[in-house]
C-alpha cells in the first residue's frame, strides 16, 4: 500500500533521527565499555544538556549549533568531575555501588531541573528549522541533515581518538584489562573520568542537535535513553561501531513502525526488536564476545 514516494522519505527521516539516537548511545556504550556499568544518569545529563542548549539560545540568542562548541567541553569537564569526585569515590570499587550512585545522580539532576524550571515543555523557534533539502522525492528538514552530518563526524572523531591517541589507547587498555593497565602505569581513575567525560560530551552535542526540532522538559531525556539502551544492547555492549549502526537501524525501525502502526504506537517496533535481540542474540547484532 505504501509507495516509494513515502517509503524513501520515511527511511531517510529514520536515518536522520537514528543518527541522534546513535550519538546518545555512543556515550552510553563508551561508559559501559570502560567502566562496565550502565550509567543511569545518562538521561538526566542529556536533559541537563538540553536545558543548557535551550537557555543559551533563550537568554543569549546563541544558535544551538554554535553553542555546541562551548557546551561540549563544559559537559566533558562536568562528566570528568562527576566521575572523578563523586561517582568514583562513592563507589568504593564496587560496580553495583556505581549503579546506585548514577541512579541517585539521575534523581537529583531531574528533580533539580524540575524545581528550577517546572514541568513546562519548552521549544525554540529557529528561522531555518523548517527549511528543507530536496533529495529526489524527499524533503528533508535542514536541522536533521545537519544532525546526521555532525553525528557521522563525531563518531569518526571518536573512533580516531580511540584508535590513534595515547588517551584512546589507555582507554582501550583499561577496558580490556584494568589491572594490567594499572601495572603499566596508566592512571585508571583518570581514564575512567576521561571516558565518563567523553560520554557526557556526546550528550552535549546530541542536545544541541536535538533542541532545534525537539522540546525540552525535565524528563525529556528519558525517552532517548530507553532507546539508547536498546541500541547499546543491539549493537553489542561497548562497541562504538555497533552503537552507530544500531542507532541508524533503530531510527529506521521507529520511522517505519510509526508509518505502519501510527504515531501512538511507533515506538513499539523498537522494543519488540529489543526483546527479540535479547532472546536470540544476547550479545547484540554486532557483539563479538559475551
Amino acid at each position, binding site marked *: 500500500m505504501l509507495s516509494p*514516494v513515502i517509503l524513501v522519505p*520515511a527511511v531517510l527521516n529514520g536515518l536522520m*533521527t537514528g543518527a541522534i539516537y546513535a550519538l546518545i548511545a555512543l556515550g552510553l556504550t563508551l561508559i559501559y565499555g570502560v567502566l562496565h556499568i550502565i550509567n543511569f544518569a545518562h538521561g538526566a545529563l542529556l536533559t541537563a544538556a538540553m536545558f543548557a542548549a535551550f537557555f543559551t539560545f533563550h537568554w543569549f540568542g546563541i544558535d544551538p549549533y554554535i553553542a555546541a562548541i562551548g557546551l561540549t567541553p563544559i559537559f566533558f569537564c562536568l562528566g570528568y568531575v562527576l566521575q572523578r569526585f563523586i561517582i568514583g569515590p562513592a563507589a568504593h570499587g564496587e560496580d553495583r555501588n556505581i549503579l546506585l550512585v548514577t541512579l541517585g545522580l539521575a534523581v537529583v539532576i531531574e528533580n533539580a531541573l524540575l524545581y528550577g524550571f517546572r514541568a513546562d*515543555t519548552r521549544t525554540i523557534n529557529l528561522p531555518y528549522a523548517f*527549511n528543507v533539502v530536496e533529495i529526489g522525492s524527499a524533503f528533508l528538514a535542514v536541522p536533521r541533515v545537519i544532525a546526521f552530518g555532525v553525528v557521522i563526524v563525531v563518531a569518526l572523531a571518536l573512533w580516531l581518538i580511540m584508535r590513534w591517541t595515547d588517551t584512546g589507547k589507555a582507554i582501550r587498555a583499561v577496558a580490556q584489562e584494568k589491572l594490567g593497565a594499572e601495572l603499566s602505569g596508566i592512571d585508571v581513575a583518570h581514564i575512567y573520568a576521561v571516558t565518563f567525560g567523553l560520554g557526557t560530551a556526546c550528550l552535549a552535542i546530541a542536545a544541541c542537535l536535538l533542541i532545534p*526540532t525537539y*522540546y525540552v522538559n525535565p524528563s525529556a531525556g528519558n525517552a532517548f535513553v530507553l532507546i539508547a539502551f536498546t541500541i547499546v544492547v543491539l549493537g553489542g555492549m561497548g562497541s562504538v561501531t555497533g552503537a552507530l549502526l544500531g542507532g541508524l537501524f533503530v531510527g529506521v525501525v521507529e520511522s517505519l513502525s510509526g*508509518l505502519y502502526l501510527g*504515531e*501512538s504506537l511507533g515506538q513499539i517496533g523498537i522494543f519488540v526488536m529489543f526483546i527479540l535481540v535479547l532472546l536470540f542474540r544476547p550479545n547484540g547484532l554486532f557483539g563479538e564476545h559475551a
Partner: protein
Amino acid sequence: MLVSVAAPEGEPMSRQSLSVNRRRFLQSTALGAAAAAGVLQAPSVLRAQGAAVKVGILHPVSGALSYSGQQGRIGATLAIEEINASGGIKALRGAKLEAVLGDAQSTPEGGNAEVEKMNGAGVAAIVGGYASGICLAASQTAARYDLPYIVDVGVVDSIVSRGLKNTFRFGPGFGVIAKTAIDNLVTINDQANKTAKTVMIVHEDSAFGAGLAKLLNTQLPERGFQVLETIPHPTPTRDFNNVVLKIKAQNPDLVIPANYYNEYVLLARTMQQQKVRPKGIYSVLGGAASSYKFVKEFPEAAQFIMDCNHWFDPKNAKALELKKKIEAKGEFYTYEVYMNYSCVLLLADALERAASADRDKIIAALESSTFTGHVMPYGPTKFVNGQNQGAAPVNTQVVGNDIQVIFPAAFASAKPVFPMPPA
C-alpha cells in the same frame, strides 16, 4: 569574674528565646492557617463588606497544554478583576471574588489534586479545566464535595452526560460542534460544486481528539465524504513527518486536524514544508486554526485554513472591548481567554441570584441561569443537564493576516475561500 559568669548565662537564655520563638512561630502559623481556612469568621469582624468569595481557577498552566492554560487563566482572572473593580457581588454586600489559582499540570491527576486543594481552601465554585480529560476528572472529584464546577472548554459530551449535578458547561460540546462543522462543510463544498470528496482526519489520541474522530467517521460518510484514513498521534508529538507523508501518499481533498495548539502548528508547518497542499484544511476545534498567535507567527502555514471552533461574537461591543484590553497587555485574544472570561461572569451572575456562597444555592442558580452578559455568539442561556443549550461554534477562516468569521451568516464578516488557491 562577673564577665565570665555573664557569658555562660547568656547562651542558655538566647537558646531559650529561640525555642520560644519557634513555638510562637508554629502557633501563629497554625492560627494563620485556621483563619485562612475559616472564611466565615471574617464577616463578624468586617460587617461593612461581605466576605470574599473564593473561586477556584483551574488550568493546565504547565506541561504540554501550558499555553492554552495560561490563556484561560488570563481570561478568568481578568473577569474577576473587573467584577471586583465594579463593586463585587452586590447581593453579598459587595463581596469580592478571590481567585484560588490551580495548575492541573496538563494531566487529569494534576487536576484532581488541585480540586482537592481548592475544596480544602473553601472555594465556592471552580471554573476551568480546559482539556476534556482534565474536566472529566476534576468535575467528578468536585462532585464529591457538591462543589459547583463550570467547564470552560472541555468538549467531550460525557462531561455533561454523567448526571453530575455540580457540573455545568457554558460552551458547546462535540455533538453540536461536529454537527455544525459538518453542516457548514457541506454548504461550503456545495458552493464550490462539491469539489471535495475525500478526507483524511489527523487527531490527537486523548478523549478530545479520539472522540471527535469517531464522530466524524460516522457522520462524514453519511454526508457523501469518503474518509481515506484516520491518523491518531499523542500529545506532545514533535515530528509530523510520517503523518504528512501518509497524507502525501493518499492525497485527500480535505485534511481535518483535531489536536491542540503545538501539534496543530507543527502539522500545518510540516505540510507546508513537505509541500502538501490539499484543496482545503478544514479543522474541527483545531487547536491553532483560529488563533491569532498562529496567524501572526506563521502566516504562510496558516493561510486559508478553515476552522469550526469557539469564537467571540464579533458584533458584541463588550467582546471587542475585551479584545482591545487583552491585546493592550501584549497577549493574544484566543478562545481560552473569552470563554473563561464568560464562564466567570456566568458564575458571578449565579452568585448574585443565589445571594449566597452556599454550594447548593449556587448550583440551583446556575441551573436556572438565563445569563446574557457574556461575549459569545450564543443563543439564550438555558442549562439542561448542565449543558448550555444556547452554545454554538462558528466557522472561521484565515485570510491575509486576520481571522474572519465565515459562518453562520448572522455573525459572518467574509465569504469562504474554497478550494484554496494554489501556492
